[in-house]
């Protein structure tokens, strides 16, 4: 990333233009592949433009937390290493943030009914591990990671010791909180930032939306006004339908 590009992207942004010629609220192409990992109980590979992530779900027995003896647990982890890009930035911190925000989106929307994951109260419950790994970072890991995690959870089929057959996770499909990330560069708001845009952005806002707003996360050093936050939410509500269609495409009832 050269300093020249930095100024160029920011001056374009002031005019409402983007380096890759997208409209302000135009997302990149999203493609999903199912069951890409044999050893997982559910998995998904997501491409958002050139951002590539894999999510794998494993459902394993575990000891319940002392304060929730009859509830299963959800553990979301996001892995981002030097393998994924050559852009500067604090990789380790940002990967923890992505993991925790993805976790919150799934947890707070109550997508998975954890009370149904109890095997023996106080002794054994099921732990749902969702591991998301970035392969190529071309920006907007929040959205790519979120979609990959949701899709992998949707297609998870796990087996239980001593029981016949495969089981799906107890999920409520009306509660899929889909992440929409906006970036603010030089006073203009754009949807679905690329890595170059993230590198010059002032601030960003990730919104997790089901029928209500389930999660928000402001990132970056800049600021938003209350009006700008509302504008992003309005756009996210509009954009959700398309993302939802792509997410559910090919998922059977």
């Amino acid at each position, binding site marked *: 990333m050269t300093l020249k590009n930095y100024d160029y992207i920011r001056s374009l942004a002031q005019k409402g233009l983007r380096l890759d010629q997208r409209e302000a609220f135009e997302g990149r192409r999203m493609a999903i592949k199912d069951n890409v990992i044999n050893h997982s109980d559910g998995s998904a590979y997501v491409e958002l433009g050139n951002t590539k992530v894999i999510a794998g779900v494993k459902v394993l027995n575990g000891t319940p937390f002392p304060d929730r003896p009859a509830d299963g647990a959800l553990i979301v982890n996001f892995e981002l290493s030097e393998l994924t890009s050559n852009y500067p930035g604090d990789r380790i*911190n*940002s990967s*923890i*943030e992505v*993991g*925790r925000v993805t976790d*919150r989106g799934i*947890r*707070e*929307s109550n997508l998975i009914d954890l009370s149904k994951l109890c095997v023996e109260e106080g002794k054994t419950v099921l732990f749902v591990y969702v591991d998301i790994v970035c392969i190529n970072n071309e920006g907007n890991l929040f959205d790519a990671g979120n979609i990959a995690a949701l899709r992998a959870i949707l297609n998870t089929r796990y087996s239980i010791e001593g029981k016949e057959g495969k089981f799906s996770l107890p999920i409520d499909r009306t509660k899929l909180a889909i992440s929409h990330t906006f970036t603010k560069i030089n006073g203009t708001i754009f949807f679905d930032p690329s890595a170059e845009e993230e590198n010059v952005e002032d*601030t960003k*806002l990730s919104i997790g939306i*089901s029928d*209500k*707003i*389930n*999660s*928000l*996360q*402001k*990132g*970056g*050093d*800049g*600021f*938003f*006004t*209350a009006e700008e*936050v*509302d504008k992003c*939410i*309005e756009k996210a*509500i509009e954009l959700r339908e398309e993302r939802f269609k792509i997410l559910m495409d090919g998922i059977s009832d």
Partner: protein
Amino acid sequence: MYEERFDKRAFNELRPMEAETGVVPNAKGSARFRIGNTEAIAAVYGPEEVKPRHIEKVDRGVIVCKYDMLPFSVPDRAKPGMDRRDIEISQVITNALNRAIILEDMPRAMINVRVYITQADAGTRCASLTAASMACADAGLPMRDLVAAVAAGKIGDHVCLDLSKEEEDFHEGEGATDVPIAFLPSKNEILLLQLDGRVSRDELKKVIEVGKEGAMKIYELEKEALKRRFSNESKS
């Protein structure tokens, strides 16, 4: 239904607060902020030489901020040192301070901000940020304004200010929605905004409004504490 708050507060009422600066004499600036049973102590060192060198910036200063929940601050024992949650909160606090402090005035310098949570009862990231901004002001750093942070939210059908731990764990109906939010009051800018739970667009607007009102009260308290400190100093 949630008609009356557990601690009998009005829905837009903050818990009792205390603010004080200069609590860590060794530091360049320091502050203690207490809201209900949540207490944060912040200390600021610098501007000083940047270490490690690779994070140095030629055109502006850098802030390194660490938030740490002390082992005895929670009902169970928290593991000493920083966990994933602490790292994320450090990051969002740093983001907010990066805007509040005029870093362009101190190229090639580093500011170290350390925050301890001595007692945790919800709203720790907001208390940390409030304490950290007071400590920065106490250290005499060039700032756009103080930062005032508070957790607003929704419990049942009620928009609430300054949620307690008991309220955060409320599970009936739509449960609790927690919205930590930080303002730069004089410029009307939002520097920190997070949400988890379940709210509609209109409800969120109200939550932000209530948060703003609460933040303004915290802002006044911060200013008072700083004034008190500097009038004391001139006397002694």
